């Protein structure tokens, strides 16, 4: 083989894993011909923490805390996906207050997660101010999470059986206050970007993902819908009573970065609609199931009821025992289809718990859409796929 001259050679460039705009620790090995990306190979695993192994060592309650740390931008969604899988095998009834609160919190999470996406994507492309606006609103949502669970990000608030604690006083008013200002705030973001010529030049027709490729690659969520796919787990496989809420599944068609932007922006508005409906129907009553084999009895019963004391002791020492069986339970996380495959053997620990992380599948699309594009657009493409590396590596 003849030695290639400098002009003929392609440049191999290592991008990441500590590159600030790869959203965590994504490493890309790029082959560049001038400014054109010839090939792009993602290298992942830098954040691999062995969560799936840990689920096998920990009780079902302890397992909740690991779900927060997978998709750290959408902790409530991950709590919910995990809890629903466990509850399907337990066949336990969740009180309506907890169910509605879960929907409200999951949609708030979607809002918060999309705000981070919008802020970071715009910042990656040079629009710093959008980031500041987005994080201003996200802070208020995190304040609500803090009031609920005591934690801003690692909430572990939604647990098998219901919620960890009852909703705090003034929850509905605080959420309502945010929902009331958000439409105007989203208008502000749009005023900065939607018709902005620089933004449009850099996003329209860039990073196009075709529908058949998206389906074959297992891309889900807003990325699939921007390409014209009509899968939304909330509508197609309703959980937590999503079938009773009135909302639209936002579907685009072109599948470029701009379309993904439009789809997510419109999804934020749909989320606001769902939150408002949830607040209207938020009932009183218990926040956790009355099944004593799943949730602790109230403190007042312990002094008078022997049975309650036994249940408390069994739960505190062993945890929940989940009957043997297997289930694949899916929810719509902000990033797409979050699947939990749980195999239980009747003990208090999962025998096997596999998480089908939406970002893991989505990130496979990056080499495809990056090929032939400019290296300067690559950062925009990564941002538009919105991967969270904690979830990719698990």
């Amino acid at each position, binding site marked *: 083989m003849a030695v290639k001259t400098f002009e003929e050679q392609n440049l191999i460039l290592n991008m990441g894993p500590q590159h600030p705009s790869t959203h965590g620790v994504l490493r890309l090995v790029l082959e560049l011909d001038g400014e054109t990306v010839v090939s792009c190979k993602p290298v992942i695993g830098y954040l691999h923490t062995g969560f799936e192994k840990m689920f096998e060592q920990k009780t079902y309650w302890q397992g909740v805390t690991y779900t927060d740390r997978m998709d750290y931008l959408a902790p409530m969604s991950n709590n919910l996906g995990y809890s629903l899988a466990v509850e399907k095998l337990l066949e336990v009834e969740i009180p309506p207050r907890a169910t509605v609160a879960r929907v409200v919190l999951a949609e708030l999470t979607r809002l918060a997660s999309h705000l981070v996406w919008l802020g970071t994507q715009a910042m990656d492309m040079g629009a710093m101010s959008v980031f500041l606006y987005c994080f201003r609103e996200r802070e208020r949502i995190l304040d609500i999470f803090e009031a609920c669970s005591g934690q801003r990000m690692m909430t572990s608030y939604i647990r098998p059986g219901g919620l960890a604690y009852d909703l705090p006083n003034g929850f509905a008013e605080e959420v309502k206050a945010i929902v009331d200002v958000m439409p105007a705030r989203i208008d502000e973001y749009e005023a900065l970007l939607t018709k902005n010529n620089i933004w449009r030049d850099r996003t329209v027709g860039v990073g196009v993902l075709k529908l058949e490729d998206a*389906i074959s690659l297992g891309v889900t969520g807003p990325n699939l819908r921007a390409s014209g796919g009509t899968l939304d787990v909330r509508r197609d496989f309703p959980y937590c009573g999503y079938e009773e809420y009135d909302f639209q599944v936002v579907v685009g068609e072109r599948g470029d970065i701009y379309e993904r932007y439009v789809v997510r922006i419109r999804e934020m508005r749909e989320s606001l609609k769902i939150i408002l409906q949830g607040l209207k129907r938020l009932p009183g009553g218990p926040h956790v199931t009355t099944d004593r084999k799943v949730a602790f009895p109230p403190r007042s019963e312990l002094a008078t009821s022997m049975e309650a004391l036994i249940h408390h002791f069994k739960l505190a020492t062993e945890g929940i025992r989940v009957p043997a069986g297997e289930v694949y339970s899916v929810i719509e996380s902000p990033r797409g289809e979050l699947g939990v495959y749980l195999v239980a053997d009747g003990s208090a620990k999962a025998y096997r718990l596999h998480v089908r992380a939406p970002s893991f599948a989505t990130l496979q699309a990056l080499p495809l859409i990056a090929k032939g594009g400019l290296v300067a657009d690559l950062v925009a493409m990564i941002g538009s796929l919105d991967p969270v590396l904690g979830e990719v590596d698990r």
Partner: protein
Amino acid sequence: MSDQTTVAEQPAAPEKDPVLAQVEERFGEKLLESSVVLDQPTFAVRREDLIALATFLRDTAGLQFVRLSDLCGIDYLDLGKTPRFAVIYHFHSFQLNRWLRVRVPVDEDDAVVPTLTNEWSGANWFEREVYDLFGIEFSGHPDLTRILMPDEWEGHPLRKDFQPPKEPHEWSFNPEEWQKAVQRGS
């Protein structure tokens, strides 16, 4: 259900799941297992029938499980099942709006399964993950390398009998050696 038919008759056997019926008719004896678990049809086939079943599910009108949603491995060692491993596939059909599970049992001594990357390009990373964490190989896979663990890692962590490696020497604490060092006065 109309009212007239159900009055005096014996309670009819529950209607067979249409997906189950269609797959059983085509594959019959080849199915090691066929049932509906929590509304999810579940089949088990030998590895030589996997691609035939997967493409049948995808291409048959009335089924159209066009999306491979998930692919993972499992180690049945502690449950005492044989063969020891299985690879589990979850398919999704837009048309039927349903999930479907396919299980392929895998022998420990001959842990090889045909790849689905030619049918679904998204199977690529999922199969690498199963290879990485369980040591199950996928024949025909374009790039079967470790994906989550470091390349030089030994063993497959999600196996039930996996022993975590010892810490590198300079960070480890060995009580006996420590005692000796104390006695030596160093």
